[in-house]
């Protein structure tokens, strides 16, 4: 079994694990973690693609590698925005939950922002 094959299997497993966490975990911070796992699984798939495209004296195709670098930075920025939203929500409401019922109890006078 080559390291590329192994990497592919790990990547696929990570996508599955992350997807499960994203759907099944109720706490937003755990969802963010799961999103990061899923993201890194996707990046690994890019890595396998790069490795399988080794040519011209290169051990791996540089184009997917560059895309992964872009992707890692974007994923970090996304995590930062999400984490800060969770913290702000926690601060404003005393709890960090996405459940609808928690907000349904709040008085809603319809005077939303205009």
């Amino acid at each position, binding site marked *: 079994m080559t390291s590329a094959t192994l990497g592919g299997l790990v990547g696929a497993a990570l996508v599955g694990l992350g997807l499960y966490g994203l759907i099944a975990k109720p706490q937003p911070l755990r969802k963010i973690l799961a999103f990061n796992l899923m993201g890194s699984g996707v990046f690994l798939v890019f890595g396998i693609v790069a490795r399988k495209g080794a040519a011209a004296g290169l051990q791996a195709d540089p184009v997917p590698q560059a895309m992964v670098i872009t992707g890692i930075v974007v994923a970090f*920025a996304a995590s930062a*925005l999400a984490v800060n*939203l969770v913290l702000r929500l926690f601060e404003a409401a005393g709890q960090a939950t*996405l459940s609808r019922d928690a907000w349904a109890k709040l008085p809603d006078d319809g005077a939303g922002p205009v």
Partner: protein
Amino acid sequence: MRVDSSAIAATAGGGLLALPILLPVVGVLLSFLIGGRRAEWIALVLMPVELAVAVAIACLVWRSGEPLVYTLAGYTPPLGIALRADGFSAVMLVTAGLIAPAAALFARASFASPRGTEKRAPLVFWTLLQGIQAALSVIFLGADLFNLYVGLELLTFAAVPLVCLDGRPETLAAALRYLLFALFGSVFYLLGVALLYGAYGTLDIALLAPLIRPQPAVWLAAALMTAGLLAKTALFPLHLWLPSAHANAPAAASAVLSGLVVKGSFFLVVRLWFDVLASLPGVVPGTILAALGSAAILFGSVLALRQERLKMLIAYSTVAQIGYLFLMFPLSRGPWAADAFSGGVMQASSHAFAKAAMFLSAGLIAESLGHDRIAELGGAARAMPATFLALGLGGLSLMGLPPSGGFVAKWLLMKASIACGQWVWAVVMAAGGLLAGGYLYRVLAPAVSGESPLLQKRPARSRESVALALALVAVLLAFAPPGFFAFLQIGRPAAGLALQ
């Protein structure tokens, strides 16, 4: 598999294609850098220029009858990145180019900065509004699947903070839910991109399309990318984030989010199935998409009927109207394909104008009455007739009644679905039209009768006219000449046309 890169060559005037992206990017960077009141001025100065560029691009596409192409950085695809504008791109570009400045004009009263100091909400709003424009331009013009991914992310980052500008807990929760759905969507899209690159070694749409074969990697990529884009477009059953996010944002932001932002990811679903995967058998996936769309129409309309707040009602009607967009997919192969495509695009554009007009009107109503509870709207139309006229004219398009762009869209889609024998979509559309009539009646009927209520504040004439102008555009789209539909076909792959 060797890729023939000579297929991509820049066309005359192609350099124009970079401007709709670069101008708002300059706007974002400068607005953030020098801040304060100047953010608003920068946006208001750049938007007309951007609209002019969009119109110029449309004219060039029209005159040449061919898509406009530009290769960036001096490298041709597959190594480099190309921009490409076909008829559909140009129409969406102009649509966005009109709605964004309308929302901006409307927003001036809510997001004005006092002289000298910088305030939070205005700076964020003006910066991100330009961010949305840049992102949509990337999406409408991008010809490279990874570049489109970056465009999608730009759109997410620009759109999400607008939802929770007021910082209330429920809007923060709505923004977070929106962000999580959007991130899920991006990751799935990106995974599909990885698989397509692995299979064919290029991400340029024009180079990729002829290479596509029905093989496992392609099917999985198609499924993942479509699922991801549907989460961002809020197609049933992935719509859960939309109503609270769109209904709680400031009116000008709601107009852009509901009118334009969801169309960005929809646009990519169309790119995917009509351009990249045009050679795949499209009936089964198209039918699945249309079935989800039908469910969205019925479900969204029924829920809209049951809402207590006007902005929530309008947000649920977006869920329903997004459903119509997906009825074009099972009709994409055959002699009726052109009608179905035109219908879908017309729906995307007319809903954008109508929905923007409605959210702006709803914002004015909420501001004038101090609430937007539907049960207490009695007589309100007498106090603010122009606002309700805009709401009603927008509603015309949602119901699909003539004369309106919505009517033309639904008519074309019905024609196509009956022509190819898939009349079930026509039935759904008729039912959706009736339900839309129902929920609009709930709002408009009491509003035009009874005592006019005491207004807390008269809506400004200028803001009413912005909403009305948008609603009028949605109506005027009904009079689109046949040439408009020919224009939409510019750049469609020959595969679809060959069957005609």
